[in-house]
Structures are given as C-alpha cells and as structure tokens.
C-alpha cells in the first residue's frame, strides 16, 4: 500500500505511517484492513495529484544565487569581449609567447562563457523545480573555482616589502 505513495514522500513519511498503522491495528491483526487500505490509496492519490507546493525560502535564495552567478558570468564575458582588442594591443608587443597564453585564455572564456551562463540558468531552473542534483552540481561549481583560488593563493609568493 505504501508503494502507492510518491517515492520521496514514502522516504520521508513511510516510517511514521507504518508506526501509526501498527499502533491502530487490532490485537492479532497481521494485515491492513479494507478500510485502511482504501484510506491509504486515497491518501496516495491525493499526494500524487496535488499541485506542487511553493518551494521553501532557502530554495528561492539558492535560485537567486544561481541567477546572480549567471549575471556575474555574463558581465565578465561582456567585459572580456569588449576589452579583447585593448588587451591584444597591450600584450602583443611583449612577445608572442605571452600573447599566445593570453589569447588561449580569451578564446576559452569567449567560447565557454556562454556555456557557463546557460549552465547557471539551467541549475537555477532545476533547483526551483526541486531537483536535488542541481544543488549538488551548484556546490561542485562553487567548490571547484574556490579550491583552485585557494591553491593559487597558497602557491603565490608572499608579498613582503623588500629591504632597501
């Protein structure tokens, strides 16, 4: 009977429902009665047919953060595209090796920037719909650059004033 309920609902409430069924069972009763079975099926139908409830406030916050991530990504992409010419003018005279490294970075950002924006918006949409994996993906997206930045800061030489 409990299998009629949505999987997530069963996971969250199955134990409790089972506890109540056992507490309300008659002495020696080993199977759910007809009235109880009909009530459980009715309850399961209500849960399956009920319109989705508004998500909790924390989900709204997470969705807003993901949209902010997309906005920041878009702003960075526009900045890089607009200033690419100036960067080229400044870097090209320094030598082909340095310019080549910057060019690779610029191209990567220009190509993957829009993809990253779409991914941020897709995570926001999925999180708003209640998909657990979207929150996990967001954590990975946030944790990876944070880990890279931390590693970079750890490797960078300390900025100490040189003695004169």
């Amino acid at each position, binding site marked *: 009977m409990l299998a009629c309920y949505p999987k997530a609902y069963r996971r969250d409430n199955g134990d*409790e*429902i089972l*506890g109540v069924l056992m*507490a309300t069972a008659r002495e020696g009763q080993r199977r759910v009665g007809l009235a109880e079975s009909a009530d*459980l*099926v*009715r309850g399961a139908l209500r849960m399956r047919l*009920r319109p989705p409830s*508004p998500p909790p406030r924390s989900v709204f916050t997470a969705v807003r953060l993901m949209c902010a991530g997309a906005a920041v990504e878009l702003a960075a992409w526009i900045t890089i595209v607009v200033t690419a010419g100036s960067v080229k003018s400044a870097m090209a005279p320094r030598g082909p090796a340095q310019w080549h490294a910057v060019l690779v970075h610029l191209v990567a950002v220009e190509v993957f920037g829009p993809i990253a924006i779409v991914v941020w918006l897709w995570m926001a949409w999925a999180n708003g719909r209640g998909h657990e994996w979207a929150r996990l993906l967001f954590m990975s997206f946030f944790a990876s650059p944070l880990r890279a930045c931390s590693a970079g800061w750890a490797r960078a030489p300390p900025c100490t004033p040189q003695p004169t």
Partner: protein
Amino acid sequence: MSIRAMQEATFLILTALADGSQHGYGIITEVREISGGRVRLRAGTLYPDLDRLRTDELIGVDREEIVEGRLRRYYRLTPAGTKRLAAEAARLHANATAALVRLNLAGGMAT
C-alpha cells in the same frame, strides 16, 4: 480578504495540537476524543493533511524520536497556526451563536 472555511478534519487536527506537540497516533486519538468518537482519522487521511499544514506553515516539526527502530515525528502548532485556529474557532462560534439565537426566536414564536 475573507479566509476560506477550514475543513473539519483540519480544524480538529489543529485543535489536537493546541495544548502541546503530538505524534501521528496521538493526533488520531485526540481528534477522536475531541469529536466524541465521531471523527476517526486514518493514516492515509492524516499524513497528507499534516503535509499540507506544514507547507502552509500552520504546523511544524517539534522533534523526532526513534521508537522501536522507526522514526516518530512530533508536530506542534506554529504561531500562524494558533492564530488561524483561533480565527476559525471564533468564526464557528459566531455562526453557531447566530443559528441558536434564531432557532430560539423561531421556537418562541411557534409556541
């Protein structure tokens, strides 16, 4: 803006929680007692109602315990739930009073 009338089962569930937190079986027992045996909630009816009341933030989870290896949740009224229950009780009281006054009047005129 007028608030829709509450269903009797919902009203009784909130009433059962009015003087302290209860778990599912406790709510069923209290509701039967409050209604004088007339309303017998079952698990299939109760838990979707509890879920809806939690979504509407009229009740919340007070605590959880493990009893005989199974999770047992205790529910409590939220301040919003207390306010809603009080408003509904006042509405029902006003309606019942109006009906009884008119019935008494009608009975007085008939005799």
